[in-house]
């Protein structure tokens, strides 16, 4: 058996093992390759960075646990960034499987930064209806979300004194595992003239470049890479939590995963190249054999 047919008939289990090793080894022994930030992600970071304290940012976490490794760290980073700058995040989700994760993220970050629900932030929870929810919020936030996730009436919250509808937010950021970015653009951000940023799973990232090109979103953080870049930007500018030297910011989950990502990508690219070369050789050999016969 020569090399060509060995490659083409490689057992699945061998490949699976290599993939598993490519993931596990860098996780246990990190290489810590530096992560370069791109203008796409800076487009989100800079906008939030330049908002004055007391601004209101609408954070829509439209994802479920299936995209947790990609978007959950992004959500935490965005919330941390807001709290770091005393910006009020308003968190909500259009996905029914979302609230559990959102709750975890906002409660963790609120505990770290010692923020109060209703005055410093609000977790609006979930409502059915995607576009209907966004359209409802362009009319009135507190009527669309009459209560927050915990059942507290929103109309009485101090945070909603100067925020009534989507147009009153200073920035919208959507963390999307599906097609909610289009909904936010079409019904929320664009008609109301609110700048918007998008963070999405890598699967759909390529599809949002036309919006980025046209300036309909200020920035785009795609997948784990985008999240890792955001984490890098955050910890570069805010190495300590609230400037407290005794509380250094922990390395983000996505940043930790990027080495494994590199390893698997290199393996897959190599296997595509090797397998295609072998395939080409075997096709040529077959053709020669046929000609001989």
């Amino acid at each position, binding site marked *: 058996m020569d090399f060509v047919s060995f490659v083409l008939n*490689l057992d699945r289990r061998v490949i699976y093992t290599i993939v598993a090793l490519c993931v596990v080894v860098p996780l246990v022994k990190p290489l810590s390759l530096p992560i370069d930030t791109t203008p796409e992600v800076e487009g989100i970071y800079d906008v939030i960075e330049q908002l004055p304290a007391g601004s209101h940012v609408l954070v829509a976490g439209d994802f479920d646990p*299936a995209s947790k490794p990609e978007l959950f760290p992004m959500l935490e980073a965005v919330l941390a960034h807001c709290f770091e700058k005393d910006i009020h995040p308003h968190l909500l989700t259009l996905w029914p499987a979302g609230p559990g994760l959102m709750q975890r993220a906002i409660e963790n970050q609120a505990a770290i930064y010692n923020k109060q629900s209703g005055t410093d932030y609000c977790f609006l929870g979930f409502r059915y209806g995607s576009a*209907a929810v966004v359209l409802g919020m362009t*009319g009135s936030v507190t009527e669309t979300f009459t209560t927050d996730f915990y059942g507290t009436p929103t109309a009485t919250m101090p945070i909603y004194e100067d925020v009534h509808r989507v147009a009153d937010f200073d920035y919208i950021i959507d963390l999307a595992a599906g097609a909610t970015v289009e909904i936010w653009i079409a019904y929320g951000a664009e008609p109301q003239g609110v700048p918007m940023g998008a963070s999405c799973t890598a699967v759909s990232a*390529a599809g949002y470049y036309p919006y*980025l090109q046209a300036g309909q979103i200020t920035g785009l953080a795609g997948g784990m890479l985008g999240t890792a870049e955001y984490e890098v930007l955050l910890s570069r500018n805010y190495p300590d939590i609230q400037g407290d030297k005794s509380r250094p910011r922990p390395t983000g989950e996505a940043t930790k995963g990027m080495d494994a990502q590199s390893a698997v990508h290199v393996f897959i690219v190599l296997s*595509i190249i090797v*397998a295609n070369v072998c395939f080409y050789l075997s096709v040529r050999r077959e053709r020669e054999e046929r000609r001989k016969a």
Partner: protein
Amino acid sequence: MLFFKRQWPVIVAFVVGIVMWARYYIPTDESQTLQDEFTRWARILVGFAAILGILSLLHHHVSKIRLKKPGFGFSYITLAAFIVMGLAGLLPISWRWLGFAGMQIHGEGPWNWMFNNMFVPMQATMFSVLAFFIASAAFRAFRARSMEATSLLLAACIMMIGRVPIGKWIADSVTFFNTPEAASWLLNIPNAAAQRGILLGVLLSQIAIAVRIIFGIERTYMGGGD
């Protein structure tokens, strides 16, 4: 009766659709109120549609058990898990005796515990399995069969190397092999152009479907039957 079954829904869709469409161009408060009220109703309706999904799933499993279809034993697991998870969130009972601090959906109750330790890992794992299959497909199936497939794979390889830290590392060591730059250009220029072309086409077809629904030509939403 047949009128109410067949024509009436079409008329409703037409009237509501036209009103919602026209109101966009009318800048009065009444027109805004109309939209707000409609979206409020829509939210409630979608909520019920979601219940429909839940009920039909349960119905499916119950009937599987009743008819003893193959693999009906697993349906017991589904039903049991549903009942436990459902009650954990709904019952106004303190779970302190089980060591949980919260109740219903608040705090660290059993509902939250089950969400974090069962729902999250299982849903996350389901799709992560595909990473293995992609790697195996890279060996066994991703072939440059044609010009199109070749250009696709080429772009994909540039992306895969250029969008991870190792691409930067390679670019720093080998000057001519700057995949991060190439990947960024690919994404921002040809990709954006193609996606915009596709997007314009898709939008036109979305609008066409909406027009067909309003004018009663497209009636798939009505379901089967008379």
